[in-house]
């Protein structure tokens, strides 16, 4: 690979990384959500890859072991699609750990920060 191509590839990777860490939610404010990410782990039920925002539905066991459906809001499919995200990115049945900003009233609603899959692949700001 020529040096120019390497530089171009590096620039593209930097751009994609910067896009991935932009605030995901632009349609409304994030008032009412904690700004300190919390980790949740569970099984993907559904990935709603739709406008104006994507929603990741994930089943998470609470302290008593009961499964609770969490709704995790992410960016628009238009923005995410340009970053390589696809409807199959969060396939139903996949085991995922997520960093999320949770709603401060305790409802199982959160804003996406990052995710780590069973194979170690990470998205967003998981670390």
């Amino acid at each position: 690979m020529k040096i120019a191509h390497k530089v171009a590839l590096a620039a593209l990777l930097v751009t994609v990384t910067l896009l991935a860490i932009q605030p995901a939610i632009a349609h409304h404010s994030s008032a009412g959500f904690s700004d300190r990410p919390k980790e949740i782990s569970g099984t993907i039920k559904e990935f709603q890859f739709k406008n104006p925002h994507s929603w990741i539905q994930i089943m998470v066991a609470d302290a008593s072991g009961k499964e609770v459906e969490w709704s995790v809001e992410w960016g628009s499919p238009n923005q995410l699609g340009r970053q390589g995200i696809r409807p199959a990115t969060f396939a139903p049945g996949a085991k995922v750990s997520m960093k999320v900003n949770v709603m401060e009233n305790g409802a199982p609603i959160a804003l996406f920060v990052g995710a780590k899959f069973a194979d170690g692949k990470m998205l967003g700001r998981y670390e």
Partner: protein
Amino acid sequence: MNKTTIAILLGLSVSLAFSPSLSYGQASTLTPFDKLPDWSGVWAMQGGTVFDRATQTGTGGSVDIGVREHPPYNAEWEAMYAANLRLRDDNRFPDVQTNCGVPAGFPRIMNLPDVFEFVVRPEAFWILAENGGNVMRIYTDGRALPGPEDRWGTYTGVSVGKWEGDTLVWRTVGLKGWRDKDNILDRTGLILSDASEATVRMRKINDNTIEAVMTFEDSKALTKPWTVTKQYRKSAVPQQFVYDYGCAENQRNPVDATGKTLFLDPTGKPVN
């Protein structure tokens, strides 16, 4: 003269009677394709969605507490903007677009996330915004702006322009502004009135950057003209697709009667 000939002549007469408004005096005003600049590709606005970053105070984006801009408002409109800011700080100033029913309008169409296409044709210039599926039309075929009696205030107004070399200069009038409280410039609550008008100078300042310099006059809201510059960067990704954007497709953030943005669980029940 037989009946067929008469019918043909009658048809031609009727056609000619209705055609002058389409072609009269236009041919000489059109800039041919080969003289127009190449603005093809996919473009993204630079910076956040604070409309006038040059006068921004406070840290963060348009939804962050304390962030505001400083257009040359008169006292009445400064008070109206301050009221919107207080609602924004209290999370009670929903983006009017959160209702998924109205266009962004002008000038907000120049201040949207996602991407744009700028379509340059001899007779018109079209701004196609991916966000919200918003469209703006600037006619460059030599037509005049409608007179004041023929304007009724719309989100995007009416615009005509002309090419000065590689710079498109256009005038926008007939805006509804904040008249119906459903048209904003950004989510700080920045607004203009239904008397607002704008002159825009838009040009490519280098291979990858288009700049729009917008000067607003508003006899109801501003004490002097207000100029705002926005830039758009060309995507380095070749043959990028632009998608639709149906705001109502999966709307889980409706607004209640108090202006609060709700979050719906998967059954549609608000949880906040």
